[in-house]
């Protein structure tokens, strides 16, 4: 926004008000225009996406209306389509993933940024960045060959024996299901949380820590009460990123979730997610209503991401008002 510092070329007869041409020659106007176009493209692509999804889902929107969101039959043969089990599966697996990944990721970020020696921190960061770059099908294979057998043989029977009185840990242990998908997703999103949170924590000004230490706080108190609140917005940003990835992840989820459209309180139950069903059925979807229902599912996923992101942002606003007011602008 600071456009006042540029030097005006001298000896112009119309030096007072700089003409558009002269500003253009300075580069300000060009830079403004170019960056504006770039920023505008993002909005444009988003709007185009929504428009296309909206336009291409005409049939199911008119046939099922709001019922699409609240019915749970998905039958391509008899042309009955309801999105509820897929919405449920998407929300539950993404929620589980965050539940596991947020404490682990932020804890690791605190260690790397505040406690670990710089060399250890940088080395570990290298590996974390590598993890973030692993293709999701690899995580899916990890799920199939490692996580699923472990879940079926040890974790699920263990949970059933100890916490089986809860509705979350009942039913047969297939290995695949909501819990397994949540765990695999958590493994996938942790690198994002660590990586971004660490950067944010490191960039907290040194003065903040020193001031806290000077006031007699311990190292942990300075981290917990001063550095973390200062970095809260950035850390939240990392969680949004993780949430977005968890909601939209396709390949790894479809390999471990069991691909059965069910709504069940039990996390052992096989389920289905929006992204997974689109990937599974899109290529062979023949009827118009069937194809368009899959496209409407895409629209639903878009809205869901939008809604959850909005809710999360609202949460930040509420908590930062109630909190110590340390939150960054």
């Amino acid at each position, binding site marked *: 926004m600071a456009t006042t510092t540029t030097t005006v070329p001298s000896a112009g007869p119309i030096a007072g008000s700089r003409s558009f041409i002269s500003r253009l020659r300075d580069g300000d106007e060009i830079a403004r225009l170019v960056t504006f176009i770039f920023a505008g493209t993002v909005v444009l692509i988003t709007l185009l996406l929504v428009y296309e999804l909206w336009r291409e889902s005409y049939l199911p929107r008119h046939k099922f209306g709001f019922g699409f969101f609240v019915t749970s*039959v*998905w*039958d*391509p*043969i*008899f042309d*009955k389509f309801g999105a509820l089990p897929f919405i449920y599966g998407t929300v539950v697996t993404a929620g589980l993933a965050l539940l596991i990944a947020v404490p682990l990721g932020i804890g690791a970020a605190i260690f790397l940024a505040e406690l670990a020696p710089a060399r250890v921190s940088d080395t570990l960061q290298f590996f974390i960045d590598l993890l973030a770059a692993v293709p999701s099908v690899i995580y899916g294979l990890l799920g*199939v060959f490692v996580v*699923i*057998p472990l879940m*079926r043989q040890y974790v699920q029977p263990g949970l059933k024996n100890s916490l089986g009185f809860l509705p979350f840990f009942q039913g*047969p242990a*297939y*290995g*695949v299901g909501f819990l397994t998908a949540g765990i695999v997703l958590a493994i996938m999103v942790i690198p994002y949380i660590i990586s971004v949170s660490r950067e944010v924590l490191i960039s907290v000004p040194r003065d903040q820590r020193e001031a806290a230490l000077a006031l007699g706080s311990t190292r942990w108190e300075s981290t917990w009460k001063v550095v973390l609140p200062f970095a809260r917005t950035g850390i939240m940003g990392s969680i949004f990123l993780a949430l977005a990835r968890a909601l939209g992840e396709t390949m790894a989820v*479809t*390999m471990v979730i*069991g*691909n*059965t459209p069910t709504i069940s309180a039990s996390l052992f139950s*096989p389920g*289905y997610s929006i992204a*997974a069903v689109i*990937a*599974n*059925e*899109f*290529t*062979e*979807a*023949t*009827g118009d209503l069937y194809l368009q229902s899959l496209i409407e599912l895409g629209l639903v996923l878009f809205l869901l991401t939008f809604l959850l992101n909005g809710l999360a942002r609202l949460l930040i606003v509420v908590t930062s008002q109630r909190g110590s007011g340390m939150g960054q602008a």
Partner: protein
Amino acid sequence: MKRLASPFLVVLALVAIGVAQAALSINGAGATFPNPMYSKWFDDYHKKNSSIEINYQSIGSGGGIKQVTEGTVDFGATDGPMNAEQLKAFQDKHGFPILHFPTVLGADVPTYNISGVSGELNFTPEALAGIFLGKVTKWNDPLIAGANKGVNLPANDIVVVHRSDGSGTSYIWTDYLSKVSDEWKNKVGKGTSVNWPVGLGGKGNEGVAGLVKQTPNALGYVELIYAVQNKMPYGKLKNSSGEFIKADLASVTAAAAGAAKNIPDDFRVSITDAPGKTAYPISSFTWLLIPSKFSDGTKRDAIKGFLKWMLSDGQNEVEALSYAKLPKEVVAKEMKALDNIQ
């Protein structure tokens, strides 16, 4: 730079040669199941006729039907025949009909993982339908045990596994179940994706195979070729003559021969539960979808030439890739049908 440049030039040169030689390029898209066979055929045919290059994208049967209807490809391919509605859509758009040409045969087999049972299990149609409807839930159910005297079946719950992705394999399987069980026909129906009453979904043959191998007491279905190549155990099925038949290339071709006498002129026929003592009941054709009129005469002749070769010399390559050959009656009938392409 130099090191980079030389392979780049080689690639460029190859591309240039390819473009120069392939005067005629024909594009097709569709079914994934016959893709290995089609790739080999198109490659071999190109070697014999260097002026004709056929490109095939295995995007799935649904995509193949869609693209050939929209006219973005020259021909399509599908594992399940086009239905009346789809045929009408093509006719309405182009003003002439589309033709089905069977190319090879495939089959589905039931595969299972029961600890302590290593031999081949026998399955009756009633047992399979019951299991996939969720009515037969234990391995020692009389419907299963009755056909497997002497096998010690456990009293465990059956874990049903099906395909989660839309596929011709599921089409054949549900087509069979629809024929042998009225309840399946009315409640679930046949299709590349259906609303499965029970079970877990695995993505692709490998997804189903993985779940079956890992999950004790599981029962799923995969393509015969996949089961053979991966040495998976699979069961015998009771056919319409009451014989328990193990799927192999001969018994699949026998199923087609059994149905060949009554094959309709448009070749849109399901050969599941086919008559014949040695016929394997869950078999199916896979089809090429060829428009009946081409505005480009050279393209038409090239496609007809390929089909003629595919039905004669091409059929000799089929078994090497574990597909079942077309029976002679069907080949003869298809040769005649070639005249319908104008």
